[in-house]
């Protein structure tokens, strides 16, 4: 196992008077896709938002390549090479697809080779390049959100429930895209869709009620139906 690119050690996060994360410790190895699973309200999104500095951790350390980033401003965390694709995709609907992408570059210019690879992954973006992002379908918006995260090389991409509300055919194309992206970047994927998660994940952590309930390899979890039932209250069969 490689050195972790991201480590959370004893992270607790409050939102107003509510304690959402309790002493969360998590290690994300460098390279590949790593999954954070959990039910609605378990604390998955809060974990990602805390890593990005959008909500401040009350306690604990968040280390990215060994540097504690817990107290940094969100923009400084992003500049360290962490991209974030939120659950609502964070698309700027009033901007064109091109403007959305341009905004994610550090100097406003595109690497044409990289852009070509993104077009190959998500052909719809080239088709709608000059159109307003409002005009895109849900799946196309998700493609744009992911493409924006990889328009320049990032070390880590945090993706929050990318399959939510998408048609099965689009989810299948996402699997291929994520595999391609994971060749050069580490992905921390938050999901509820176990089928999607198991097709991509190398490691998995399960969060429940703001606490990490399990960590291990995805293969172990896939092979252990009893563990799935205990952790997710769902068996793999139930999804098939």
């Amino acid at each position, binding site marked *: 196992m490689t050195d972790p690119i991201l480590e959370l050690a004893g992270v607790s996060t409050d939102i107003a008077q509510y304690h959402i994360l309790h002493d969360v410790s998590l290690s994300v190895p460098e390279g590949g896709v790593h999954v954070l699973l959990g039910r609605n309200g378990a604390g998955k999104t809060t974990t990602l938002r805390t890593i990005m500095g959008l909500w401040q951790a009350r306690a604990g350390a968040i280390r990215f390549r060994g540097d504690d980033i817990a107290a940094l401003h*969100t*923009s400084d965390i992003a500049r360290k090479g962490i991209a*974030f694709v939120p659950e609502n995709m964070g698309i700027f609907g*009033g*901007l064109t697809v091109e403007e959305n992408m341009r*905004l994610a570059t550090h100097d406003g210019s595109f690497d044409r080779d990289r852009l070509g690879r993104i077009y190959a992954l998500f052909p719809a973006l080239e088709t709608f390049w000059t159109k307003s992002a409002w005009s895109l379908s849900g799946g196309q918006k998700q493609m744009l959100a992911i493409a924006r995260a990889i328009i320049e090389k990032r070390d880590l991409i945090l993706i929050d429930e990318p399959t939510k509300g998408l048609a099965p055919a689009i989810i299948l194309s996402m699997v291929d895209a994520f595999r391609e992206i994971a060749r050069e970047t580490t992905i921390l994927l938050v999901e509820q869709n176990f089928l999607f998660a198991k097709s991509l994940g190398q490691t998995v952590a399960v969060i429940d009620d703001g606490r990490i309930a399990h960590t291990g390899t995805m293969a172990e979890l896939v092979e252990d139906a009893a563990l799935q039932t205990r952790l997710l209250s769902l068996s793999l069969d139930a999804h098939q």
Partner: protein
Amino acid sequence: MESFNSVFERFGGINLLPAILALIAFVLIGSPSTWVTLTVAGLAMGMMIFLMASGLSLVFGLMDVLNFGHSAFVSFGAFIAASVLAALAAWVAADSVILNLAALFLAIAAAALFGLIAGWAFEKVIIKPVYRDHLRQILITMGALIVAEQIILAIWGGSPISVPRPHFLSGSLIIGDVSIELYRLFAFALGLVAYVALYVILNRTRVGLLVRAGVENREMVEALGFRIDRLFVGVFVLGSALAAIGGAMWAGYETLITAAIGSEMMIIVFIVIIIGGLGSIEGSLLGALMVGLMGNYVAFLAPKMALASNMILMMAILLWRPYGLRPAVK
């Protein structure tokens, strides 16, 4: 059969509203020369209101900040410009267009400079401590407005101040039996230049791209690596300077000003940004033109309804489009 909405959109959609308003007024007024005079006055008034409103709309859209103190910049802009014009009375009254223009430029520049500096200080001292707290924003910015009015009273006194117009703008352009004040044409042209400049900045520059994105989703802009709070300071300062320029132009339009000029305009400015849709320059322009035209037409047709007319306009538009004509976020 094609729906009314699609036909309306094909012919320009909501951009046509000021023209439709002008057309209705033309029928009601009857006299073409009166209509032209009122329309030019309405457009000029609209452009000056646009100057005052555009910054406030962006400030609200970008940071969700309710700044009732915005009109203090309008008031100070008006009084500073009036003082500069009074100090340069010889240039203002001279037959030379160059001297007239120099006096006017210096008056507007002094107002803008005040807006830039005071806007920066206002954001640091008054606004920054109350981000994300609307109640405290309203209280503290209303308090700041009262303090600003008292400062104006202390410096310039309570009597109305006369504002001299540069000689070359004091006449009227006569075409047939139509008389158009030159100052109104100048105010319209200046507002148009400001709109085009803002449009270019917002649509053709990276800073503008960030502002437009920030109005929609400031959190995501930060997650892309940009400091929205620093961008906001720039927008706030620019908005304050535009308000001061608007105040300077309004002073010349009214020719007699009091310390209450800003708070009187504030209601109109809020109506404009609500009609236009928050965070949108195009919306602010549309709203300002409609308010300017409506105010002038109704003042002629039914003077007793002049004050209420813009409120009625706002209510009608909000019933039709609850987020305004052209909101930045749909």
